[in-house]
């Protein structure tokens, strides 16, 4: 992983620390930049201004507040499952970040079936949400949990199908290889910007981003939470620390999915290789291990801006409309996209 040979325990420690940073840093940044500030600006107000300069310490104040709160469990709740549920959601975020590459050598694991793995574990969080809704012993939570299950499973499919187009074009399921294929590729012979798949797979990108929006239960697909109907759905009964975990997981997930989307469609950590004359992964300079993560964060912020912008502008769909949209629009569209991609791949 790194040029220096570290003992196994040190490597593991580094991975755990790196993973924690990779989960918490995007979550914190997104919460402050988008949830606190951008939302406020879009609503003609300033947002938190008291804690730290321009309210930048607000998140720590909030965390402090949540940690102090009483950990309430409903009397009729299934206590064990009730306690485990938020952890499952958070853990799914952590195991998701494992396959995301941040630089030529800066990755947690170089996994051949990386895309497949990512799509598989991203649905683990559904389990957490479903059991949270079930174990809360609350009708609103139950409705929210069931809605979440229906919705997340329905949108898993267009997401997978959208990614299939990318995989066909890249010819690999390894995320590192997908990054390489984009930055080293060319669009019909022109390699000025490489071949970020957002240009050649724009249909897949659209479908993927919509599915991500639904997967993250952000407006217009936030029926499982549905503040004005279900009073926060599956989270209704959670308070204090456990609610904090849900909260972190929600925004960490936004970050992770934005990272995955930037790997799949925006060229990941890379810059077009033709600019520097690199022609293989080994030829990439070592400084990309430092610049790469920064590029990734930049792309992640751009994509989360998009996700959040939609979130703050749109009203919410209804459950049946959402299902109809998934099955009648997104899935056919992505199937056609796969077909076209395959034909073009064979033709050229």
């Amino acid at each position: 992983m790194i040029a220096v040979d570290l003992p196994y325990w040190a490597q593991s420690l580094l991975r755990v620390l790196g993973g924690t940073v990779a989960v918490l840093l995007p979550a914190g940044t997104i919460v402050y930049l988008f949830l606190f500030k951008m939302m406020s600006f879009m609503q003609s107000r300033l947002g938190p201004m008291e804690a730290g300069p321009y309210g930048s310490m607000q998140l720590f104040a909030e965390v402090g507040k949540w940690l102090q709160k009483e950990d309430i469990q409903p009397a009729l709740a299934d206590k064990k499952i009730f306690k485990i549920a938020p952890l499952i959601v958070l853990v799914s975020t952590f195991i998701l970040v494992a396959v995301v590459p941040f630089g030529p050598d800066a990755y947690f694991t170089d996994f051949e079936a990386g895309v497949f793995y990512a799509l598989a574990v991203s649905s683990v969080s559904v389990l957490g949400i479903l059991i949270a809704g079930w174990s809360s012993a609350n009708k609103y939570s139950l409705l929210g949990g069931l809605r979440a299950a229906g919705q997340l499973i329905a949108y898993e499919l267009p997401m997978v199908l959208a990614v299939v187009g990318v995989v066909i074009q890249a010819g690999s399921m390894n995320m590192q290889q997908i990054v390489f294929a984009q930055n080293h590729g060319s669009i019909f012979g022109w390699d000025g910007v490489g071949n970020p798949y957002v240009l050649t797979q724009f249909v897949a990108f659209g479908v993927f981003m919509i599915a991500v929006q639904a997967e993250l239960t952000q407006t217009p697909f936030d029926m499982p939470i549905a503040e004005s109907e279900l009073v926060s759905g599956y989270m209704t009964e959670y308070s204090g620390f456990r609610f904090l975990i849900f909260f972190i997981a929600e925004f960490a997930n936004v970050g992770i999915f934005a990272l995955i989307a930037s790997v799949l469609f925006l060229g990941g950590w890379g810059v077009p290789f033709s600019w520097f004359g690199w022609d293989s992964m080994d030829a990439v300079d070592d400084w990309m291990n430092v610049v790469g993560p920064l590029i990734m964060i930049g792309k992640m912020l751009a994509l989360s801006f998009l996700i959040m912008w939609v979130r703050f502008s749109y009203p919410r769909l209804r459950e049946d409309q959402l299902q109809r949209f998934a099955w009648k629009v997104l899935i056919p569209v992505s199937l056609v996209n796969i077909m076209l991609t395959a034909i073009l791949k064979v033709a050229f």
Partner: protein
Amino acid sequence: MTDLIDRQKLSYIAAQAADARLNVELETEGMTLNIGPQHPATHGTLRIIVRLDGEQVVWADPSAGYMHRGYEKLTEVRTFPQVTTLINRIDWLGSFANEVPFILAAEQLMDIEAPPRAQWIRTILFELSRIANVSLFLGDLGVQLGAITPVFMAFRDREYVLNLIEGATGGRFHPNFDRIGGLKDDLPKGWIDETRQVMKKLRNFCDEIENLLFGNKIFQDRTRGIGVIPPAVAQQYGLSGANLRASGVDWDLRRDQKIALAYDKVDFKVWTHPDGDSFARCWIRLQETREATKIVDQLLDGIPSGPVMAKVPRIIKVPEGEAWVSTENPLGEMGYYVVSQGDLGPFRVKIRTASFNNISIVPWVLRGVYVPDVITILASLYFILGDIDK
């Protein structure tokens, strides 16, 4: 009328069928869901008990009264001038509009009429309170449907209107500015110009809301065809205001009755919509806000000069008699049936509020809809708890 009875029968049969399906076919029990009294969608403390089959409503029963303040009783122990300060609190978003019908009823009993200038200013303030009320509805609508931004825009621009009301009357929410025989005071200097500016801002606000919410495909999908109320049913339940006009009934008390306000001096359009669904109700309110800004602009151009108070005895005793006056308030028809027995205070005041009738249709209209539509329909019927519970 046959139309109505058929529909009632049909909805009854549908409900029976739903019950039967619950118990026999699927061998499942329905779920009873309590929406409220503390629930973000009921903006206040309305409680709606719904019986669900999955997410479909089998029947719904609204239960009001968590905020009942007994205004009809309280008016009986107050003098006429003291009543106006009380009834400000019925519809607290458009409170000036609450005073007007009561004052007009008292004036009708005393057989006096406010001077023209007072009538014009009354009409202006009446329309301003309509704007203050309905603009918040437009923002709140977004929240009910899951969009969080419109409500902040509504609060931002509503603030300008509230500043105007406060600048003229001294009271931000509870003006208590209307007096039997006129107004408490004249307008302060510079108020008219300021109002013109604010009306421009409000028209801009309406455009923003239209782009942000009404034009959105998701919003239209959520509201069109949801909660359809046919005109005959709407009249039977006494729906009024935008809810009635959204069902295609062309009835607006501002235009359709002779009343001592300046509405006959201005030119305005009464909007109606043939659909009768949630979208129509919201859309009518948006158009009415626009129309109200135009009414205010026209009125500002032509305020007559003169006194704002007619000659009224210092101690007001209202002669014996009964009077009913209702006006087209932001929420619909609001009226007072005032019975006086020649005393300092009224003998009995029956307060007819718009929301009470508007919400009484809820059990009828909620049958067979989905839980998210419950919220949509409640939001589009637009009630204010103080207006239901009095």
